[in-house]
């Protein structure tokens, strides 16, 4: 069953190589990128079909690469149902992201190259099963993201860009510190599930786990560090880069999922309530910011943050049996935010290119309006996708832990959903007189067909989240 697993890591790299030698100002690089993403998606689906759902042992695919010809530096990769599902969500989100690029943006080789390189890193991270490879992919993804945000963002202050890099770099160095301490006490590389078995002094354990948590929190915009990600998002006009920035917190969340579920030592358990309190505070705070913002993409950022924090708290507080609920919900969530990013960007760009007011812009673009409404309704949790059931299960589990906890979470989610619905209302409602003679190009038929496929995928997942595999 491991035959095709290495392809997951090879295909994006091959794609990078082809894009590197593709012609400039041509669609070649776009086609190569799309082909590489679709091929890997096919590999993921094929792997999912090979998994026996009734098998309790989740780790199915495995391969190792002896990097230093010694056991101390053997890179181990494993994929299970959970990681494959999240990977599938990531790939679909990226495909949506690159399908949303304009004709001009599709000819940009650098964007495609760095996008594919980022995907390779995300793939590696989700498959990594040892400390070294996990660190390599965790650290590797900040380079393309920094370059793309700098190239295609509209960051007014240079200090924001530096802060973005420095903050992420500090997170990377925290993980490096944790990794080297683990090396010290284990005399070499170790598989993630064995970290808890390593004997180390209590002080060292606090340093290791403190660094691990700091590294992952650096990727999730928990207050007071939420500013950097919202500021780099502002002004981005490339749907691919937007999807990438939305993907960054996923890496932090996944880190918590991999480390927390099996390896949490008793030494840091007293700090858990602090993380929980900060998490809930941030959820409420960001949801309020989302209500106050007047820009759809900012509201979307607030929405993603609130949901990422929901998944984070679920990882920390809920038992392991809920892990598949998180996975099913996460897949839908990734697809929905990618779709909303692409469609929202289209609406905003149309608004900038024409003389029309932002209020009621969707009234000029009926096809886009219908699709946009569907995705907003999925995002707010209506029974249209797998997110409905699984979020319901997660939130009820929180209520079981504590009524206050559940109430606060529901308050944050309700506020952020209201913000999205309110924005939808503003964008659709044409209270002012329609500007005569204004023609705004709606999305193309090809794009409608593409998004219809996404809609069908999501809707069927409401009945069976793994309908395509089993």
């Amino acid at each position: 069953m491991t035959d095709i697993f290495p392809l997951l890591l090879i295909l994006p790299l091959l794609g990078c190589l082809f894009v590197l030698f593709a012609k400039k100002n041509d669609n070649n690089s776009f086609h190569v990128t799309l082909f590489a993403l679709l091929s890997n998606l096919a590999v993921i689906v094929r792997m999912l079909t090979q998994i026996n759902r009734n098998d309790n042992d989740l780790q199915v695919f495995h391969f190792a690469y002896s990097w230093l010809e010694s056991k101390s530096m053997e890179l181990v990769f494993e994929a299970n149902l959970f990681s494959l599902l999240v990977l599938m969500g990531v790939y679909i989100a990226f495909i949506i992201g690159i399908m949303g690029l304009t004709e001009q943006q599709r000819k940009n080789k650098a964007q495609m190259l760095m996008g594919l390189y980022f995907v390779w890193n995300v793939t590696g991270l989700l498959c990594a099963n040892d400390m070294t490879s996990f660190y390599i992919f965790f650290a590797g993804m900040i380079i393309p993201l920094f370059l793309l945000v700098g190239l295609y963002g509209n960051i007014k202050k240079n200090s924001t860009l530096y802060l973005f890099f420095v903050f992420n770099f500090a997170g990377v160095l925290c993980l490096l510190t944790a990794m080297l301490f683990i090396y010290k006490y284990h005399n070499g590389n170790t598989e993630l599930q064995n970290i808890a078995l390593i004997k180390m002094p209590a002080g060292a354990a606090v340093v290791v786990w403190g660094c691990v948590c700091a590294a992952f929190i650096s990727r999730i915009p928990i207050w007071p560090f939420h500013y950097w990600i919202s500021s780099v998002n502002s002004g981005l006009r490339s749907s691919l880069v937007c999807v990438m920035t939305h993907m960054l917190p996923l890496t932090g969340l996944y880190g918590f999922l991999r480390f927390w579920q099996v390896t949490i030592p008793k030494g840091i358990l007293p700090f858990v309530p602090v993380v929980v309190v900060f998490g809930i505070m941030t959820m409420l705070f960001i949801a309020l910011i989302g209500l106050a913002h007047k820009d759809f993409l900012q509201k979307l950022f607030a929405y993603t943050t609130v949901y990422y924090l929901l998944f984070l708290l679920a990882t920390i507080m809920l038992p392991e049996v809920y892990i598949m609920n998180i996975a099913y919900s996460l897949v839908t969530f990734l697809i929905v935010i990618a779709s909303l990013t692409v469609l929202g960007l289209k609406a905003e760009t149309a608004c900038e290119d024409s003389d029309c007011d932002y209020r009621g812009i969707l009234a000029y673009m009926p096809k886009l309006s219908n699709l946009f409404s569907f995705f907003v309704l999925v995002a707010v949790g209506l029974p249209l996708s797998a997110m409905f059931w699984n979020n319901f299960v997660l939130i009820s589990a929180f209520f079981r832990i504590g009524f206050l906890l559940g109430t606060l979470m529901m308050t944050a989610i309700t506020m952020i959903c209201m913000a999205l619905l309110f924005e939808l209302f503003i964008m659709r409602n044409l209270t002012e007189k329609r500007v005569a003679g204004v023609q705004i190009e709606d999305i193309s038929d090809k794009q409608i067909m593409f998004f219809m496929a996404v809609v069908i995928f999501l809707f069927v997942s409401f009945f069976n989240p793994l309908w395509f595999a089993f």
Partner: protein
Amino acid sequence: MLESVIYLSPLIVLLSGIFILMFSEHGEDEQYGCFKFSRIMMLIAFVLTIIFYNKPLISEVTSGSKYTALFECLLYGGGFALLYLSRKWFASMNISGYTFCGSIFVALLFGCLLIRSQNMILSVVCCLFLIMGNYALLRGSSAKNEVAENVVAYLSALIICIMLLCGALLVFYQYSVSFDYSDIKSALLLNEGNVWLFAAASAILAVLMFMIGLAPLHFWYTQTSQKSVLPVFAYFVIVPVCACWAGFIRINVEVFSPLADNLYLFYKATALISISFGALGACSSQNVRKILAYGTIYHFGIILLVMQSFSLSAVNTGLIYLLVYLLAMYGICACLFGIKIKGEYLFMLDEFEGAAYKRPYISAMLTIFIFSLLGLPPFLGFFGVFSALSYLAKQDSFYQFGYIILMMIVLSYGYLQIIKNIYFEKSKENFDRADSGIYVAVLLNALLMIVIMLKPQYLMQDTYFMIESMFQ
């Protein structure tokens, strides 16, 4: 007799090269000829060096091993690349390349001797000639008045170095009646706690540290780097540094090991000062070469911090970091050769604005080499940072570990300024077309790095076997 002459042949080739360059006609038409001749001579010397890598160049006072061969390869590689990349600039600027080629030959000759030396007087002579070679090059490249001021400062330092080295030699001779490394080591063991011997050893080490550019003796290094022309800058960050590190490590391991406990604190303080000065200096500069020079001081500080005990594993770790640094620096210099406007190489950050739009491949490689210096995976620099920090963690040097991490974040700001200007600013100037030679040099460097990244045992394990013989 014949055998000795054959073993000496690399030096004879280099020496004859120096004499031919000194006495040949310095005409404008001879520019390309001078560089071509130098390259051929260097290639012959290199081949002979590799063939006789484990033979003594001069019996009794030198010895060869895999360790010396490694540094000689790096030295020749750097020198050859410099000659190859700088020839067009000298021709286009109508500046005589004879001094430059001659200085590289002097550096190679005395650098190789310093690497292989096992006699203190020979090492001291090599150091002096290397300093004088640097001085000649600085003087030759001083077109502007500011550089001339540095030349005067360097000359004063040269005089102080001569005095220090002569004093040290006298002290060593008084106690060991020989200049052989093993005799001096025996004298140090016999006269444990002798202040004069410690002072003499410190004087030798201080001169070497001055040549390497470690803080607080780094003033000449950063000042000359920011103002000298690119070929001279590249020479300073690669060629003498490589020879001096090799000599510094060898002297510490083979001669001054009895003083290791006394030198430990001295090295630690110097290393921490270098790390701080390097990281903070890189952030405060607007000159790309000064940023890189300060970055170099930071990296050398880490190497010294790791090597402070000069045990086998410490030297191995420091060597890995040094090799990674040298490869990245070769690449950066090659890339800087490819970014110029109207035939002039660039100094200031704002001159690099938008270079990525006009020279995308060279800019991309420059960015990769810079990220490699920051130790980010999957680039080669990761191995350097990984081995250095891993070593410190194993030694329970947690404060030093934390300090390096902190300063690395500070240093990243300096490096990011270069990347920001290259990528995120609009291009105002038309950048010149880069030679195909520059692309070849960058590609070769990148290929070498890729090979080592795929097979890291060449770097992480084979270096161990190379230095093992020094400790036997």
